[in-house]
């Protein structure tokens, strides 16, 4: 059943380019809403789906599709965000092609193909039941996003794209070597065929994913890539792609958690430092998209923190991924909205009081930052579980408590500080503009979903499923 649903966006990848831009966009968005229904059903279904695809020789093992609650939860975020960003990309990319003086219809075919390929590969990735299959989709997503940055990015886009390619491939290679070692040890790379993961393999996978996530140090690639990518691509890269690093770690952790448990304290400390460091970096940025990119680093630090905190922490990883996906996609789209409406305006020092000109975008940004800060949105549960995990794991350890609390405070701080810088205060002298409907409505759809997730029936749907998904595997 999963296969059929997942085939829909895959078919759309190849069909959409044959249509005119408007129809192609519609097809893409609809194609992601079909598996969206599946994920909602999967979250409610209370069972695990396994669908074998093909048997391959040792040490690769069976390729199969795995639909458990974790996959459905990640898939849920990927589907809805991809669908909304697909809608959004129509007016945005038209603006971008005009700016680059390309032929719109012709260029949009290329774009929508790569875009759909990129999003679909991420969706397949979270349903892959085999590390090699997972790696293949990881690679497809990297290549397609690389091409998108290379072809339509801003600034020094070829250099940035190469940089992105190199960094993510270092990450990918390390993880691949780790996977292969695991495969040779266990004779299979199917999730259900792996019994244990050795030190070297765990270390390589972990390092690879920390580069991808990214943690402090390797984080330096992210602001370049996310800031210079065309905004619809940023709105997938940042909310969805980097978080898949956390997904892979979580999967490996579910199979054999010893590494994280052994090195819990250093990883926790590293996560806190990454998160706080990037949080402070946010305050200093003057480029809206770069600012958001640093905030991504800070938010991904949450995932590193959470993974150390036992089963509630693991649940928090999933919720954090979802809430960050919602929040950050909204925020990147607000940045893009201002870029599209005001011809490349990204410099925050030239903004101020923008609520006057673009109130709908400003209000969406508020919902976006509420998601990041965990205010009245699904992120609230993420924070709640992380805090509970801190007590479960460290007891009343004052430094651990205060550092986590501090990181959370910092997220709220930079969120509302940025809002004040960009949207409030004395308005600058810009003409009031009409924002195309597709540049703001998708943001609100995501925003409303993120708020509805704190209330029944969505809250119990998600949280019960995650509890089942995590509780079933981790001892």
């Amino acid at each position, binding site marked *: 059943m999963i296969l059929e649903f997942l085939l829909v966006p895959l078919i759309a990848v190849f069909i959409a380019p044959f249509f005119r831009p408007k129809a192609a966009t519609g097809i893409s968005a609809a194609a992601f809403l079909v598996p969206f229904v599946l994920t909602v059903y999967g979250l409610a279904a209370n069972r695990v789906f396994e669908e074998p695809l093909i048997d391959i020789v040792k040490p690769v093992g069976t390729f199969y599709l795995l639909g458990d609650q974790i996959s459905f939860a990640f898939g849920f975020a990927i589907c809805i965000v991809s669908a909304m960003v697909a809608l959004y990309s129509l007016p945005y990319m038209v603006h971008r092609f005009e700016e680059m003086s390309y032929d719109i219809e012709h260029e949009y075919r290329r774009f929508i193909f790569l875009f759909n390929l990129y999003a679909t590969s991420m969706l397949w990735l979270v349903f892959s039941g085999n590390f090699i299959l997972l790696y293949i989709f990881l690679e497809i997503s990297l290549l397609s996003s690389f091409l998108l940055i290379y072809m339509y990015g801003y600034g020094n886009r070829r250099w940035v794209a190469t940089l992105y390619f190199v960094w993510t491939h270092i990450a990918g290679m390390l993880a691949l070597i780790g996977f292969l070692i695991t495969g040779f040890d266990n004779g299979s790379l199917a999730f259900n065929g792996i019994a244990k993961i050795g030190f070297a393999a765990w270390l390589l996978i972990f390092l690879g994913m920390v580069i991808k996530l990214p943690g402090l140090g390797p984080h330096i690639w992210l602001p370049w890539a996310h800031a210079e990518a065309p905004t619809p691509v940023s709105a997938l890269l940042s909310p969805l792609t980097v978080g898949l690093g956390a997904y892979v770690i979580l999967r490996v952790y579910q199979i054999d958690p010893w590494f994280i448990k052994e090195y819990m304290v250093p990883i926790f400390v590293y996560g806190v430092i990454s998160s706080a460091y990037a949080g402070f970096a946010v305050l200093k940025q003057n480029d809206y998209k770069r600012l958001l990119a640093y905030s991504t680093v800070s938010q991904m630090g949450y995932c590193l923190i959470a993974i150390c905190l036992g089963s509630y922490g693991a649940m928090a990883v999933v919720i954090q991924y979802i809430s960050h996906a919602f929040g950050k996609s909204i925020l990147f789209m607000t940045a893009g909205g201002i870029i599209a409406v005001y011809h490349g305006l990204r410099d925050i020092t030239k903004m101020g009081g923008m609520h006057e000109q673009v109130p709908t975008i400003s209000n969406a940004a508020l919902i976006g930052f509420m998601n990041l800060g965990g205010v009245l949105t699904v992120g609230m549960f993420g924070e*709640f579980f992380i805090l509970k995990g801190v007590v479960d794991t460290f007891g*009343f350890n004052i430094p651990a408590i205060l550092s986590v609390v501090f990181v959370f405070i910092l997220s709220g*701080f930079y969120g509302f500080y940025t809002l004040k810088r960009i949207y409030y205060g004395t308005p600058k002298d810009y003409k009031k503009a009409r924002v195309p409907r597709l540049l703001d409505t998708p943001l609100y759809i995501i925003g409303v979903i993120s708020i509805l997730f704190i209330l029944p029936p969505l809250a119990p749907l998600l949280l019960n499923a995650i509890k089942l998904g995590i509780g079933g595997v981790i001892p």
Partner: protein
Amino acid sequence: MMEYEIPLLFIAPVICSLPIAFAWVRSPGAKWAEKLAYLSVFGLFISLVIALHILFTYQEGRYTIQWLPEYNINFVFIFDYLSKYMGALTGIIAFLIGVYGLEYMKGDYRLGWYWFFFNMFTASMLLVVYSDNLLMLLIGWEGLGLASWGLIGHWFRDDDEISYVGTVGRKVGPLNMFWPPSMGGWRAISTIRTGDMPMFFAVAAIYALTGTLDISQIHWGGLFHMIGYGGTVLLCVLFLMGPFTKSAQLPFSEWLMTAMTGPTTVSALLHSATMVAAGTYVFMRMSWYIQPWNLHSMPGVEVVYIFVLFVGLISALYGASVATGCRERKVLLAASTMSSLGLMFGCAAASYWFGKFAILVAFWYLITHAFAKATLFLVAGHLIHATHDRFSCGDLALAKRMKVAFAATIVATVFLVGIPPFTAYWVKSGMDEVIHHIAHEVGMAPLTLLILTSLLYSAALAKFMSQNFIKGPGYHLHLHGEKLMPLAYATMVSMLVVLLYEILTGTEHVAGHFVEMGYVSSSFIVGLGVTAAYVIGTYKPSISALSKLGTFLSDRMEMPFLNDYIVPGVGWVIAWLVGLGNSAIDWFCHRGIPSAFNRFSRSIRSIQVGYLRVYLKIALGFVMLVIVVSAMGWW
């Protein structure tokens, strides 16, 4: 009935505010859109009716709606003495201020935003009030913070000096001593987030340790026993960070002063009557069920209550002193609000020694204060409208033109400061009695602080009354024939008379006890002192010989330095270091390593230039190497 009524209590105001919110996005400023404000107020009215229905007909008890049963977390509503009265109070005040706002906010440029957040605030506040579950309480709590931020920064354009706080252009050292609305909003939310997150942790810790979040069901004694002295103190202090920041206790008081950049209706509802009182309310609710008076064998609990007692009373004294120095109408009231909140904390904390009655005294003071202070704010708003000046000004001629406002001010101040035999006198007598009683355990310091606060507080409010209606500076009056505004504050102030009736007749079983305490001679002496302070404040609202001290006080004893200089300063230093670190890593990864590779590659390639002499040199070099190595080997 219950299953429809309770969700409706929270949903109705929010739903009713959505039409105007959406309409304003489509066509801001349209006449038909402005009319939708009435629908918003109707939403508040529904809440009011339900809250009153709960007050008069519901049995004490709890009501559960499933939320996350798998986690043992549900929407649990509790109906007890505190919540029934507090809910009704919130409903009445929100509705009256809503009515007032119809006139006050007429012609505003951002009505959709205003009504949405105003109504969302009311719903959040009611959620906090009736909540027995801590996570549900936190949802309301965050809603309060968000609504407060939205409404303080309502006039986000910062273009009207009338919405500022402080004297525009004034500087003290490196600091601007004036704050526009966008700054006020930022200061509020940043302070509140600082408190909310530790509180959130405490809630999560309670969940982790006990597996439940229902305040009335947790076995608090067992919990404190389990985590011991250090754990108890840590848990309670982290929890209290939430109430302390929300209720603007020291050192988190600054945001409340600059919260006055919001519309006056907001100051009246959020920043005096309800939201800031939510902090003290939560403390009372927790204490009600923790029953600290039964936990004298737990060492940590006493420390916590002493801590709260002194934070509260010191903040109270600070607030009252600052209020005496203020010239801005609303800031004066804000400082006195902070003072009152401090008294509530102090008195409720005394419950550790005195028992449940101390909480009831604090709660009754909360009610009295809410009605009186909301009235004063509404009058201040009317005055600001009428004189276009946020600094106190006015004389008897003005008082004659605005009779209702003058009368309401006199009643509200006299009833609030504790002049016998009016409402607050009886409640304050209860407070005197409570704090006096605990002198055996904690010494005379609390009582001294309380009496000093009462005197200064009385003088400050007398100053407010006098400077606006009797002896204030000159003014220009522009009355527009307002009807709803006087109606709202006249109704509000009449509630104080209702309370007085309740106390004197003893129809309300708790209030009846206050009368006994009012007849104690020491209470009466304090009452006389308060009266004297009021008379002096009225007669001499400003003393020019003390102008230096007054400036120090109206600069809030230089507390703005904490919010605007010290904390951001530290933040910017770290951010600067982080910026350096980023540049260094960026240079190393994206310039250093590539250029090192470039150089390495160039030096390798430099061998292959095509000249014979180079290859000869290399060959010779190898020959030499072979000779040397073989020579060494042979040797």
